[in-house]
Structures are given as structure tokens and as C-alpha cells.
């Protein structure tokens, strides 16, 4: 039994749930935070979404059917929670995410918890200029360290398409970045 499967088993057991949940936070809190932070831009928003995500995980763990990995399931919850916050803040739907991301850089550079140098700003700008799908795939693979299989489950895109998208983006970035 994998470590995650064992954790899920404990989470579904009412007598072990609280202890297992603390363990779950130790393992996934940081990774989910960074996933969320890239979507909602500021630390303040990411903090809110992270809390909501874990509360939702705690409440719905009994519904988790283990068809995907625990990580993927939580990642999807975090993604949905992020979209919910963006919609609430911008009163725009997920379809309008391009418009949301146009102001993404302004908000990011003004955030208290951003102190990027010239290169980092440049990388942010390049990523921001990517197509929405390319951006998500690159972030999930390069920064969230998800496997192509996990990304495929989350975005419902075939692994081969994901691989080709990812390597195209890597090429674009390396072409544009001049150190």
C-alpha cells in the first residue's frame, strides 16, 4: 500500500482522522500553496484559498473514491477553489481568465511578497504571455513537479499532447531568456 493510500485510509477512519489530517498538511500544504499562489497571484489570496482547500478536503475525504491519486484530487480542489476566488474577486467566469491574467503582472509586481529581480520578472512576463493551456502545463510540470499523468488527469488532456506542449514552452522560454 502506498503512503498516500495509507493516509487516505486513516483519514477515512474517524478515530484516526485528526492525526492523519495533520500529517496530510505536513506533506501537501507547501506544494498546494505554491500551486494556488501561481493562480491567484498574491500571498493574501493564496492563504485564503489554501485554508478553504484544506477545509474542503477534510469535509469531503469520505467522498474520495481513490480513482485518482490523493495529490491529484487535492490539486483539483485547490484549482477549483482558486477559480472560485478569482470569479468572486473579478466577478468574471473562468472563461474570462485571459482578462484576469492581463492584470496578473501588475498585481504580482505590486505584491508585498514579490521581490523578483530582472530575470525573474522577465520569466514572469514570458509565462504570462503564453497561451492559457501552455501556461498551466508548464507551471504544473516545472513548478509543481507533477507527472504528465497527473496533469493529464487534472486538465483532461492526453499525455502526448502535454509532453509536446511542455517542451514547446521550455524552448520558447529558453529562447527568450537572456542571462
Amino acid at each position: 500500500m502506498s503512503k498516500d493510500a495509507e493516509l487516505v485510509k486513516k483519514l477515512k477512519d474517524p478515530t484516526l482522522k485528526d492525526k492523519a489530517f495533520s500529517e496530510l498538511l505536513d506533506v501537501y500544504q507547501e506544494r498546494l500553496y505554491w500551486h494556488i499562489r501561481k493562480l491567484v497571484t498574491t500571498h493574501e489570496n493564496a492563504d485564503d484559498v489554501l485554508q478553504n482547500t484544506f477545509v474542503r478536503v477534510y469535509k469531503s475525504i469520505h467522498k474520495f473514491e481513490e480513482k485518482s491519486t490523493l495529490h491529484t484530487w487535492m490539486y483539483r480542489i485547490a484549482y477549483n477553489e482558486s477559480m472560485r476566488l478569482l470569479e468572486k474577486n473579478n466577478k468574471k467566469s473562468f472563461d474570462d481568465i485571459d482578462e484576469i491574467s492581463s492584470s496578473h503582472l501588475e498585481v504580482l509586481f505590486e505584491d508585498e511578497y514579490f521581490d523578483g529581480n530582472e530575470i525573474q520578472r522577465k520569466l514572469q512576463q514570458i509565462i504570462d504571455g503564453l497561451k492559457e493551456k501552455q501556461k498551466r502545463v508548464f507551471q504544473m510540470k516545472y513548478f509543481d513537479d507533477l507527472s504528465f499523468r497527473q496533469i493529464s488527469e487534472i486538465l483532461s488532456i492526453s499525455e502526448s499532447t502535454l509532453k509536446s506542449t511542455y517542451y514547446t514552452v521550455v524552448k520558447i522560454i529558453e529562447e527568450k531568456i537572456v542571462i
Partner: protein
Amino acid sequence: MEKTSENNNKNNFLKEGMQNDVSKHHKDYLGTTIPEGYFVKSKLSILEKIKEEEGTEVPKKKKIFWMHANFKYAVAASLVFILSLTIWLQSSNTSNETQVQVELLSFNDDVLINSLFVEDDELEAYAKTTLINEVVIKAELSEQKMDDLILDSMILDDSLSDGKFIETLIL
């Protein structure tokens, strides 16, 4: 020489992986940071929030079978059906006859009720007038008719004989 170094840097820019430190990775590449000791504090506030939400959450009531929504709908539907069936049966049995009966009953009731408000003198006067109009006049008329009939039969008899008798009677 400079060009080669630049190309090497380009090719190595995204080569380094996560190296198990997510926050450092993000800091190094994206310039994003977090407050010091954030994850420790965040863990505590998440656990606190869950406790709070569990405390405020109303425990789900145990439902008895007859309180289930499906059962309620079935009962409501049956009641509506029975009620409509009763009304339909009643309306289909009601004929003109019963309608007339109802009208008569109401008429009789009205007469009886009105009679309570009529004075005795008025009732007597009404009875007398009715008696004169209806009974006496009718009686007189029928008596006159009888006389005419007798007279006609006598004239007929007389004409068949010699005619003297009638002349004597008229005179």
C-alpha cells in the same frame, strides 16, 4: 567565447529541477516569497478553522422513514388525488332534479321565514280577499254556468215540443 557562455546559460536555465524545496524553487525562478514561518502558522490556523466549522455545524437530523421527501410527496399526491376524486364524483351525481329540490327547499324556507314577519290582520285580510276572489267568484260563475245549461236544455226540449212552456217561463 561570450556567445558560447550565453548559449550554455540559455540551455541550463530550466534544467535544474525542484530539488525538493518548492519554496526555494519558486523564489529562485519567480521571485515570489512568503512571510517567515508561514507554513507553521498556516497549519495551525487551518486546524483552528476546521475545529470552528465543526463546532458551528448543525448535526444532521436522523430521518424517520415517513419524514423522507419521497414519502412526503407520495402522501401529498395521494391526498390530492382522493380529494379531487371526491369532488368529481359529487359533481357528476348532482342532476337538475336535485337542483330544483334545492331551489324549492330554499323557497319554502323563505315563505316560512317571511310568514313569521306578517301581522295577523294582514293575513286575515289576505285570506278574505283570496276567498272572495277565488272561491266566491268561482262558485258564482259555476252556478251561472249551471243555470245556462239548464235553460238551454229546457229551450231545446220546448222547441222539440210546442214552444209554449218556455215562453211562459220567460214571461
